[in-house]
């Protein structure tokens, strides 16, 4: 065998192996998606059925039984609400730390990160009681507040690294051109970091959308986002797999697609820029 043939064979072997592993790991998601188009009888058919006549009935039933759209709306409002508020609070902080760093800047950043390390379960009781006393249990407002605080450190950190990466000379050029701090931010910094701000927002939305601990513990029916709604399917009547799959597919699909678009930002955000 020539060297070229050997190389080709190696690529084919590696490629096939990678494909097999990827398909195995993706299988649960694929199966969930498939099952959501089956009838309940097909869903528990044994051996499992791969080919069948698809039905959309499950999606209608899920909507009717658990009011999917209402909970989806909760997820949207809470994720977007918390993300927007967090961005509004975080942008000025990240800006000032990136462009006017002081001796304490690094300490402040690390301290912010350390609040992220506080396990939620350690403060569950006080938050629950505070929520109860201020009438925030099972409200969208309550979860928005919690999610804002939960993601604020990551958001500040991500924005900080984006701002930090802006070429310093461009800002100096703006200063030479007579930009005031305000015009510098609005006409130069913001337009240049739109991409960064958007991907930070996307990451925050994903984290909020999939958050389960607080959603389950602080909401009942009114403000329950999709994570909490799905959890209710763990009860015995949730053994209707086709409907369960339909609900799950509806809950996950938007965010999986979302996630595909911002893989790279996710790494930078979650590893706090330590891996590029």
């Amino acid at each position, binding site marked *: 065998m020539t060297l070229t043939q050997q190389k080709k064979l190696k*690529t084919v072997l*590696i*490629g096939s192996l*990678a*494909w097999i*592993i*990827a398909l195995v*790991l*993706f299988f*649960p*998601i694929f199966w*969930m998606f498939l099952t959501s188009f089956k009838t309940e009888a097909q869903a528990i058919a044994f051996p*499992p059925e791969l080919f069948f006549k698809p039905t959309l009935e499950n999606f209608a039933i899920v909507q009717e039984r658990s009011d999917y759209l209402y909970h989806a709306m909760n997820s949207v409002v809470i994720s977007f609400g918390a993300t927007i508020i967090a961005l509004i*609070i*975080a942008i000025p*902080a990240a*800006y*000032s*730390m990136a462009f006017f*760093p002081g001796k304490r800047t*690094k300490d*402040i*950043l690390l301290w*912010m990160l*350390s*609040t992220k390390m*506080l*396990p*939620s*379960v350690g*403060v*569950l*009781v006080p938050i629950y*009681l505070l929520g109860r006393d201020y009438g925030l249990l099972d409200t969208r407002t309550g979860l928005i507040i919690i999610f804002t605080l939960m993601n*604020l450190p990551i958001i500040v950190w991500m924005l900080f690294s984006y701002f930090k990466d802006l070429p310093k000379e461009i800002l100096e050029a703006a200063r030479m051109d007579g930009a005031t701090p305000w015009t510098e931010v609005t006409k130069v910094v913001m337009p240049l970091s739109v991409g960064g701000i958007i991907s930070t927002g996307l990451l925050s939305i994903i984290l909020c959308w999939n958050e*389960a*601990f607080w959603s*389950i*513990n602080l909401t009942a029916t009114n403000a329950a986002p*999709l*994570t*909490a709604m*799905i*959890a209710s*399917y763990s009860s015995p009547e*949730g*053994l209707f*797999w086709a409907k369960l799959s339909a609900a799950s597919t509806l*809950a996950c699909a938007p965010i*999986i697609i*979302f*996630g*595909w678009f911002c*893989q790279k930002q996710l790494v930078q955000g979650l*590893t*706090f*820029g*330590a*891996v*590029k």
Partner: protein
Amino acid sequence: MKRTITRLLMAPSVIVLLLWMIIPLSMTIYFSTIHYNLLYPGSTRFVGWLNYDFFITDPAFLTAIGNTTLLVGSVLIITVVLGVALSALIDKPFFGRGIVRVLLISPFFVMPTVNALVWKNMMMNPVYGIFAWIWQSLGLTPIDWLSTYPLFSIIVMVSWQWLPFAILVFVTALQSQDHEQKEAAQMDGATSWHIFRYLTIPHLSRPITVVVMIEAIFLLSVFAQIYVSTNGGPGYSSTNLAYMIYNQALLQFNVGTASAGGLIAVVLANIVAFFLIRAVGKNLTV
């Protein structure tokens, strides 16, 4: 003047995070020293270390600590080892690499509750699940995974969720590996294995640290999978610390003991966090 403005810009973030940290934490500390049960609201007397004593001597405590360690440890090993292997596998171009990557990372975006439900029902169900079918096809007796190996089942679910994260990080890190260095090694007669062992693994040492630390923080408080699939059972066999505290607080309404447990969790997390912060801080240039 400039100082004042920069401080003013940082103030909102710093203040809300400070409140978020101090208020609940000090309440937890306070609650952990009193007798406080939501079912008996009247009596809140000071009991000192009694709650801690009660929580620690609870037979579930040692099991929960053991389960937590086992869960965190196994998932870390599984995700790091498989993560490095898989990311190295898809480092070189082959047909459809982009799609393979998307497939591999997708489980990370599945919400934990859905994750648990899909595995519990459609994969691991002893009668209708995919595993049962595979076992039967092989002529074996299907296993009731969740009641026979509850902790193992949880480990599988959690690893399935976090392996993509490891792959994502390692793939990104591998892209920054020096190409010429690898070519130089090839000229020196190194095999693919040598290159992987002596160049790639050392190159990944920092990303591995980062993955271990970040996963550790999230894995210490795994909750949704347990809540949805096993409810910590059978018995306490799949109860971790987070679930045990939840159990005390919201199922038994025992705020005092739950708070004591919460503080223990905080202390444990801080031990881990201490190393993470140091690792990240070292790599941070302000």
